[in-house]
């Protein structure tokens, strides 16, 4: 196994998907010869031709509308939205069309072969429009799957599963980790299951739950807590929709405490959905209120980014407060 970064792992997944099925296409803004602004599609046009890996005009609603049509036709459509911040022009095509395609047609038609890839998340001095984490907007939409990996191994396995899943999937890639996260990734084909959380570290005092780039934050906080004798169970949700209620419930039944951390703003973020569900499922097992460590309810600021983000220190403080409740 080779040590590669997250971008390389994604590129490898795309390469495998395009090689295994000649009806697989990748497209989006600057995706073609240039290989994407982050180089995730690097080399694919040279290898598979301009008809299968190409630049689109600069129009997000067009990219996803076009992808919906391709997928309905039976083509495996992997569309890239350059930043998750710019997915909103395509919100109608995603929410009203892609998500409802199979249901409204009575399964006469579907866009199961659609995957939307998009870099998300902050920590790169990206300000308001290169930092957002919009997963909660899509979590409110039946018919979609929403997947977020935390490292190169997860990225390749989850992306291949997303491409092959027979439902439209939004795959958010933590851009802060594109080059920063390096790990062992098999060169061959493998898949990781959608809809399954992963217990990354077992513990007994509190369950820490996050996804994507926020995983390394809570792992760091868990390390700090363990130095104080607090045993944290660290869980990666991996799939936002439909999410793995069972794994989280089992963990909280054991630890009696839950802390959820996300980059996105607090109010109506996905942590709220998890907190409400776990409160309902584990009421008699909870020994303290469920803690949410999230971004502030403000747009994502530039100069005050450090203060805004839910960093490991904020998570660490919340762990101590919850355990000592």
């Amino acid at each position, binding site marked *: 196994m080779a040590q590669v970064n997250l971008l390389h792992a994604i590129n490898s997944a795309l390469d495998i998907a395009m090689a295994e099925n000649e009806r697989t296409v990748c497209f989006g803004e600057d995706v073609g010869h240039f290989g994407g602004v982050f180089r995730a599609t690097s080399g694919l046009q040279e290898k598979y031709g301009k008809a299968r890996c190409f630049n689109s005009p600069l129009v997000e609603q067009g990219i996803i509308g*076009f992808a919906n*049509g391709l997928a309905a036709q039976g*083509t495996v459509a992997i569309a890239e939205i350059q930043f998750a911040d710019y997915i909103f022009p395509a919100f109608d095509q995603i929410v009203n069309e892609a998500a409802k395609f199979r249901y409204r047609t009575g399964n006469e038609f579907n866009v199961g072969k659609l995957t939307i890839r998009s870099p998300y998340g902050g920590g790169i001095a990206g300000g308001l429009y290169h930092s957002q984490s919009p997963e909660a907007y899509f979590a409110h939409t039946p018919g979609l799957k929403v997947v977020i990996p935390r490292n190169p191994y997860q990225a390749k396995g989850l992306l291949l599963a997303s491409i092959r899943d027979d439902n439209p999937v939004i795959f958010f890639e933590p851009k802060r980790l594109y080059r920063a996260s390096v790990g062992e990734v098999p060169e061959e084909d493998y898949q990781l299951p959608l809809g399954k959380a992963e217990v990354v570290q077992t513990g007994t005092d509190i369950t820490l739950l996050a996804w994507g780039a926020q995983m390394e934050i809570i792992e760091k906080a868990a390390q700090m807590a363990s130095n104080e004798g607090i045993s944290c169970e660290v869980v990666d949700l991996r799939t936002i929709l439909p999410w793995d209620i069972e794994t989280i419930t089992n963990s909280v039944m054991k630890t009696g405490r839950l802390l959820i951390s996300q980059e996105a703003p607090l109010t109506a973020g996905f942590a709220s959905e998890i907190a409400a569900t776990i409160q309902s499922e584990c009421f008699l097992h909870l020994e303290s209120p469920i803690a949410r460590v999230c971004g502030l309810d403000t747009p994502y600021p530039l100069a005050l980014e450090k203060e805004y983000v839910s960093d490991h220190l904020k998570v660490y403080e919340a762990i101590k407060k919850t355990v000592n409740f």
Partner: protein
Amino acid sequence: MSTELYNDGPVVHQPTFIDGTSVEIPELRILDQDGTTYPNADLPDIDQASATKIYQTLAFHRVLDERMVASQRQGRLSFYMTALGEEATSVGGAAALQPQDMIMMQYREQGALMYRGFSLENFMNQLFSNAEDLGKGRQMPIHYGSKALNCMTVSSTLATQIPQAAGYAYGQKLQGLDAVTLCYFGEGAASEGDFHAGLNMAAVQEAPVIFFCRNNGYAISTPSDEQFKGNGIASRGVGYGMKTIRIDGNDILAVLKATQIARAYAVKESKPVLIEAMSYRLGAHSTSDDPSGYRTKEEEAKWQSHDPILRMKNWMLKQNWWDEEQETALFEKYREEVLAAVKVAEKIDKPHIDTMITDVYDVPSAQLQAQLDEVKVHVKKYPEAYPFTAGKF
């Protein structure tokens, strides 16, 4: 890598503005209202058998619309939309295609489905959202679709089908199929951003798609001069670098001719075409609309005299391909059939409660199953409040 287009045109040294009238767009008309063809006109590919099929489809469309509006008025149906006065655009467009071509509709193109053989029962089951509906009773009336007939299911969201048509056609091209996608939309929908997105993407990606705009003068109450200030929709096609034609949408021969040529071009060159069919929405926008609030009886009467079905009938009579006896018999037959089908469809059960959660995903998630189970327990507890489903699971 080409940017040299910027210097393609003539260069001037005084400021010279052009306006929307600089491009003159002629309107193709082959058939006059009295049933004669213009002497120098190029006729479409049509014989007596195909003409008869087209005419019978137009007649069926007229009958279905009349009967279903009456049914809606009687409270038997929640909602309906006619295509009164515009039937030639949908029926003629479909008649110019091959069965393997995909048709994407907005909602006023039931004629395309009729031409392709969507059965009367299929129409009724969808309109009454019963258990036999292909769409499983989930969408409002007139949101038809059929995989078997290559007609994409209608959704209410305007213009979303336009970029989808570009993508669908691009997929057909990648597979090397002898097939195109025809995408219908109204002139109101052409104001949506998805119109721009779809036409530009189709042009750039060279997708074999026929964009077919029904310019019928109104988007609900909004007349077209409050919809755009340019030279209709056709002038925009030129801006996207697309072959474009404007036709008389009430002239079935013009619709056929233009669409036949567009199809041949789209397949051969693998490029998109824009057709703007000029027509008039003779009926109300829908059964929830009353046009007397925003337009005059005189205006409607003027367009009554351009009836596309009567125009084709006049031509058929002149060809000696049709007579008044056949006409009377056909309309009577259709009226009886539709009435009988209404009576059957409205008695068929509503869809089973389990269909509420199927097809959200390929397989229902555990959460969805749990939610359905909860609803079932509730329905059993209060059966009188849920008469359609109680006692049926």
